[in-house]
C-alpha cells in the first residue's frame, strides 16, 4: 500500500521537533547548567586528600632508634553491616581486653561509622582481621614510638595528639622533624579506588628529616640506672646526671628524675616534664672551688703548693665563713684545699683573686648565661652583677654559694678543665639527614677559659682530690679519676638557708690524663644529708664503668 506523502512529512516533522527538543534540553543541561551539575558530580567521585609527611626518625650516636613513627591499624565498624552485633562484641572484647558490653553499646548506638579501637598492637589487629567479621575494617594511623620506653625521655620530649613536638628534641626541632604534608586529588570508583585514567593531581609530601643525636644509648641507660638507684637509696626528691664529651661538648647522656613516659604523657605529673639538667638552677657549692683555684692559677696568684694556715674559718667583709663541721686543717696547700674541701681555703684563694677577677672568671666559665645548647627550657643560672657584690660575696662565691648554676653549665665548665682549657657549647643533635643529604653539626668552641698549663695543673689537683682527698670512693680500679664533691644548702624564701636540707653533687672526669667523658651527678635533698655526696660519687663510679667500657678506653692504671 503506497504511503501518503503527507503522513511521511508529519512523521518527519514529529521526529525533527522531538530531536530539536531533546537537543535543546541536552544543550541546556550541558551548557547552561554545566557549572551547577559539574560540582556535585565531581564531588561524588573526586577525593581531595592531605598526604601526611612521615615524621623523622631520631637515633642515638650509634644508630639505635630512639623515636620513630609507625603506622598502626585502627579498628573501625560500620554497624549496619554487622549481622550479629552481640557475637562481634564478644569476640572483639576477648581480643581487645575490653568489656564486650561496652563495645556492643557502641555498635548499637545508631552511628553509621565508629572507631572501635585506635592504634592497635599488630598482633591484636592480625587476630581481628582473621575473624573476618563483615562491617569491620582497619585504617592506618601514625603513632610515635619510643622503643626504649622512658630512657632519654627528657632528651627526646614527646609528640602530642595533634602531632606537634613538645619539649626536648621533639620540641626544639619540630619544624625539621615534622616534614611538609602533600596533597592528592583523584577520581574514585564505586569501590573507592583511584580511577587510573581519571583526574589526578598530586603534590608529594616531603618527609621530615632524620636526626642523629650525640646521645650514647648505653651511657644514657647507665646514667638513668645510677640516678634511679641513688634516688631510691637517698629517698631524694629529684636529681640529674649530665655526661659530656669534653673534646667537643657533645652530650652523651642527660638523665633527670622524676621522669616520664613519652608514650603516656597524658598521665604525667607536670613536674616530671622539667629537665633538671638544663632548667633547674641550684647553688653548686664546693664543686665551684675548682674554678676559683683555676682562675688564681691562671693569674699566677697561687701555685698548687701555695700554703695557708687553716684555722677552720675565714673572716671576710666582717663575716665569718666556716669549714664544713668547723674543722681546722692547719697548714694546707692549694691542692689540699680541693682534697679537704676547705671553705676557708677557697676564701683564701678568692681573696687573692679579688671580686673583679673572680667575677670575670665565673662569667668566663659560662656561669650566669645559658650555654646555648640546642635543648628547650635552658635556664641561665645566676651570677649577680659585680656592682651588687658585697665584700663577703668574694668568699661565698669562691666556694659556690650565692650564685646559681644548672648541672649542664657545671658539666660544660668541668669539660673545659678536662680538655685543656676550651669552653665548648654543649649540643645534642649530631647530624640531620634530609632529601639534600646529611648535615653535620660543627662543635662550637666558645672561648679559651684557661691556658693548657693551668688546665693540666687542675687535672692533676682534681686527680689528687680523688686519690688522697675526701672523695676516695670515686676511685676506679684501673682508671685515674679527677673530680670534686659538692654539698650546697638550699636557699629559702626568707633569703636564708633551709636547715638540714642539702643538694649533694659530684663533678668529675675519667681517665684524668685524657678524659673520655665528664659527668655531673646532682641529688636534691638526700636523706643522708651531708653524706649524700657519697651516693653521688657512687653513682658517678657506676656510670663511669659503663661509659669507659662502651668507649673501649684503655686503662691508665694497674688494677
Amino acid at each position, binding site marked *: 500500500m503506497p504511503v501518503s506523502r503527507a503522513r511521511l512529512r508529519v512523521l518527519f516533522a514529529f521526529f525533527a521537533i522531538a530531536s530539536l527538543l531533546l537537543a535543546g534540553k541536552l544543550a541546556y543541561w550541558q551548557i547552561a547548567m554545566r557549572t551547577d551539575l559539574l560540582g556535585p558530580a565531581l564531588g561524588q567521585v573526586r577525593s581531595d586528600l592531605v598526604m601526611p609527611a612521615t615524621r623523622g626518625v631520631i637515633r642515638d650516636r650509634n644508630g*639505635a*632508634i630512639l623515636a*620513630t613513627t*609507625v*603506622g598502626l591499624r585502627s579498628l573501625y565498624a560500620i554497624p549496619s553491616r554487622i549481622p550479629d552485633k552481640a557475637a562481634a562484641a564478644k569476640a572483639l572484647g576477648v581480643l581487645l581486653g575490653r568489656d564486650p558490653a561496652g563495645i556492643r553499646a557502641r555498635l548499637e548506638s545508631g552511628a553509621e561509622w565508629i572507631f572501635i579501637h585506635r592504634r592497635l598492637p*599488630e598482633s591484636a589487629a592480625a587476630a581481628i582481621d582473621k575473624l573476618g567479621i563483615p562491617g569491620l575494617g582497619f585504617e*592506618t594511623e601514625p603513632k610515635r*614510638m619510643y*622503643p*626504649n*620506653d622512658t*630512657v632519654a625521655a627528657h632528651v627526646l620530649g614527646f609528640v602530642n595528639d595533634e602531632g606537634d613536638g613538645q619539649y626536648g628534641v621533639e620540641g626544639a626541632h619540630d619544624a625539621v622533624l615534622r616534614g611538609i604534608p602533600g596533597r592528592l586529588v583523584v577520581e574514585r570508583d564505586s569501590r573507592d*579506588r*583511584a*580511577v*587510573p*585514567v581519571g583526574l589526578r593531581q598530586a603534590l608529594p609530601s616531603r618527609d621530615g628529616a632524620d636526626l642523629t643525636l650525640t646521645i650514647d*644509648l*648505653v651511657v644514657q*641507660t*647507665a646514667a*638513668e*640506672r645510677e640516678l634511679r638507684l641513688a634516688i631510691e637509696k637517698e629517698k631524694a626528691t629529684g636529681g640529674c646526671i649530665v655526661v659530656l664529651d669534653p673534646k667537643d661538648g657533645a652530650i652523651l647522656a642527660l638523665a633527670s628524675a622524676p621522669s616520664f613516659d613519652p608514650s603516656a604523657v597524658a598521665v604525667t605529673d607536670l613536674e616530671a616534664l622539667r629537665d633538671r639538667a638544663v632548667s633547674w638552677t641550684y647553688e653548686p657549692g664546693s664543686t665551684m672551688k675548682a674554678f676559683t683555684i683555676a682562675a688564681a692559677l691562671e693569674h699566677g696568684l697561687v701555685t698548687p703548693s701555695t700554703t695557708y694556715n687553716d684555722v677552720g674559718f675565714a673572716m671576710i667583709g666582717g663575716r665569718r665563713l666556716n669549714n664544713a663541721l668547723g674543722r681546722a686543717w692547719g697548714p694546707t696547700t692549694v691542692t689540699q684545699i680541693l682534697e679537704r674541701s676547705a671553705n676557708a681555703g677557697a676564701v683564701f684563694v678568692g681573696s687573692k683573686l679579688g671580686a673583679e677577677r673572680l667575677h670575670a672568671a665565673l662569667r668566663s666559665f659560662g656561669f650566669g648565661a645559658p650555654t646555648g645548647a640546642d635543648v628547650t627550657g635552658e635556664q641561665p643560672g645566676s651570677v649577680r652583677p659585680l656592682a651588687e657584690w658585697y665584700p663577703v660575696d668574694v668568699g661565698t662565691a669562691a666556694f659556690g654559694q650565692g650564685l646559681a648554676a644548672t648541672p649542664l653549665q657545671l658539666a660544660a665548665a668541668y669539660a673545659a678543665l678536662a680538655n685543656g682549657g676550651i669552653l665548648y657549647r654543649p649540643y645534642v643533635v649530631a647530624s640531620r639527614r634530609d632529601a639534600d643529604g646529611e648535615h653535620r653539626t660543627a662543635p662550637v668552641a666558645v672561648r679559651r677559659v684557661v691556658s693548657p698549663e693551668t688546665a693540666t695543673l687542675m687535672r692533676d689537683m682534681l686527680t689528687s682530690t680523688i686519690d688522697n682527698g675526701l672523695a676516695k670512693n670515686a676511685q676506679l*680500679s*684501673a682508671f685515674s679519676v679527677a673530680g670534686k664533691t659538692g654539698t650546697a644548702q638550699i636557699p629559702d624564701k626568707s633569703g636564708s638557708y633551709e636547715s638540714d636540707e642539702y643538694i649533694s653533687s659530684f663533678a668529675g672526669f675519667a681517665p684524668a690524663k685524657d678524659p673520655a667523658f665528664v659527668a655531673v651527678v646532682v641529688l636534691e635533698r638526700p636523706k643522708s644529708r651531708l653524706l649524700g655526696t657519697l651516693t653521688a660519687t657512687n653513682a658517678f663510679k657506676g656510670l663511669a*664503668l659503663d661509659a669507659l*667500657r662502651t668507649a*673501649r678506653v*684503655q*686503662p691508665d692504671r694497674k*688494677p
Partner: protein
Amino acid sequence: MTWEIRTFGVTAAAIAAGFLLALLYLGQITGVSAHGYEMQRLEAHRDELRRQSALLDVQLAKLDAPARIEAQAARLGLARVGHVRVMNAVELAARK
C-alpha cells in the same frame, strides 16, 4: 559493480574500520585501567611491607635496648663485671 554496491561496500568498510578502531581504543583504555589498578595494588602492598618493616625495626630496637638486656641479665641472676681486662693490641703484637 553497480554504484549502489560500491557505496555499500565503502560504507560497510568504513563502519567496520570505525568499529575496529573503537575496539582498539577501548582495549587500550581497559588495559591502562587494569594496569593502573594493579599498580595501586602493588603500591598498597609495598606500603604494607614498609609498615611491617618499620614495625620490625621498632621490635628490634626494643629487644636491643640496654635497659631490657640489663633487666633480663638481672632476672637470670647474672652479676655486673667489676673490672674488665683489656688486652693491649700493641703489646700483644710486640710479644709476637
